[in-house]
């Protein structure tokens, strides 16, 4: 398992650096923008007040936007599930299905590593890669704060990252499960991506329309805390997201440990195998 963990982590190196450094640079940019705005705080507040109330509600309301945490939440964390969601969905759905569809899994599985060992090695590497990207992004915010007027503690900035991590794991594990159930990795990515994008907009519009609140409660992003996380995390939401992710992962493992491994170019499974509980014959 450790060999597979190391190998998978090595494969993620480029993505960790690409995503991590990219987001870190965004953080540095945001802090410098905040500092330049702080010099003209009155003008900035006027600009915020001039924006449509409904639009600002999407980001948490006009009042908080002029605060440091409101600024970071609006300019960084509010859309981060969508941005990093791309990585989570692609990595989750490709964790096993990519190599399976490319035909490279055949050779690996002929070596002395159990299906469970392979699954866990890759899963742990994915979780660590995701965490590494978020740590780099966190550093991109907290390091420039040392010479900024923004006064947020390291822990305060870390909290929304924890919530973001939970949400991304949710989508990664959903992608993983669907990649082992749906006809192809592409279908898994598309479906998970659809859940992500739809959830993002439903959750955002629920701030404007109370009728959408009941639907929004069904979306995972409803349990994502960005602005509120600066004050504190809701443990039950975090536990809920992790628990559902664990359930998806467990089902994915159960399916993977029992099903046939496809030959490269074999194409998708027949519709009969859409049922995750059907055993491959």
């Amino acid at each position, binding site marked *: 398992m450790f060999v*597979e963990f190391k*190998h998978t982590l090595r494969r993620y190196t480029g993505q960790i650096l690409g995503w991590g450094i990219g987001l870190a640079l965004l953080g540095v940019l945001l802090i410098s923008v905040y500092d330049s705005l702080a010099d003209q705080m009155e003008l900035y507040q006027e600009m915020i007040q001039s924006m449509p109330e409904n639009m600002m509600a999407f980001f948490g309301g006009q009042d908080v936007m002029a605060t440091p945490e409101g600024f970071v939440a609006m300019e960084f964390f509010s859309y981060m599930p969508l941005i990093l969601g791309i990585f989570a969905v692609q990595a989750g759905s490709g964790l096993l299905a990519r190599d399976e569809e490319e*035909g490279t899994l055949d*050779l690996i599985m*002929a*070596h002395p*590593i159990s299906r469970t060992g392979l699954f866990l090695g890759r899963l742990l590497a994915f979780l660590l890669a995701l965490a590494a990207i978020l740590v780099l992004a966190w550093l991109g915010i907290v390091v420039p704060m040392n010479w900024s007027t923004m006064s947020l503690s390291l822990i305060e900035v870390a909290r929304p990252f924890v919530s973001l991590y939970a949400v991304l794991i949710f989508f990664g594990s959903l992608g993983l499960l669907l990649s082992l159930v749906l006809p192809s990795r592409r279908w898994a990515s598309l479906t998970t991506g659809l859940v992500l994008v739809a959830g993002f907009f439903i959750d955002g519009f629920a701030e404007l329309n109370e009728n959408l609140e009941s639907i929004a409660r069904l979306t995972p992003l409803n349990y994502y805390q960005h602005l509120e996380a600066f004050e504190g995390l809701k443990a039950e939401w975090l536990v809920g997201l992790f628990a559902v992710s664990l359930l998806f992962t467990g089902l994915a493992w159960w399916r993977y440990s029992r099903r*046939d491994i496809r030959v490269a170019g074999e194409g998708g499974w027949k519709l009969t195998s859409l049922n995750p509980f059907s*055993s491959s*014959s």
Partner: protein
Amino acid sequence: MNNEAVLIKDLTKWYGSFQALYGVDLTVQKGEILGFLGPNGAGKTTTIRCMLDQIRPTSGSIRLLGLNPQQQPTAVQERVGYLPGELHLEGSMRVDALLGYLQELRGNQISPDYFQDLVERLELDTARKIKNLSSGNKQKIGVVQALMHQPELLILDEPTSGLDPLMQQEVYRLLREAQSRGATVFFSSHILSEVEALADRVAIIRKGEIVEESTPGQLIEMALRRVVISFQEPTDVSPLEDIEGVKVLSRGADSQATLQVEGHMDQLIKALAEYPVKDLQTASHSLEEIFLKYYRDQTQEEN
């Protein structure tokens, strides 16, 4: 003591509503080289993938080196070397990095000297990126990784696919050397001359069933032969049809007859002692013709 390296009993496999294997029974003794023949879609790769627990049989049992690959997959994989029929490798890796990773998966239980010997004999450039290699060079990686841990059982799906004739010969030598160390070799191939030259025994699979299992020599011996006999004078050859396995195909105007003989020639030759034979020619069948016979039978059935 259990002397079977491979023991397959009544193996069936369904893919949805399509049945790929219809009760395959096959035994390979330890130290034996078995050539596994069959036309495309006959079930060769399905059988091999069931043996390696990559796909799960619908029914039947498999034992490799006395172990059940479905219940003890890693114990089997430790002792088996496998080369897939369609070898796909991670193109972004270097050859040495990939082989290093595969060695790590095997717990680095590899003899460095033997590994180096394989690399040199197959003329594999380990410093190159896999995506820049030709299919033949990629196949060499497959052969090296299958052999490098000196497994007790080699399962090779088209082992010389894409290799030039010199490298094919080198692979044959490596497999014979593995056999001389006590390894068992189970290989599928479309190159019938290679099966004829390498295999101790041949199993032919057709439409998911083993239709023939024998030594290459016995298969050839038992095959249909065409015998052309020239007589010194016009001769009635109909009595020859009384001999078991003999059929007269044609009676030529110039005192010549063409016979078809199934099995041994002994009875026919003894009978011909009574005839004024001027010349006798037999066309000996190669394994390829025998294989094609089975293949033609299948095509005719389908038609």
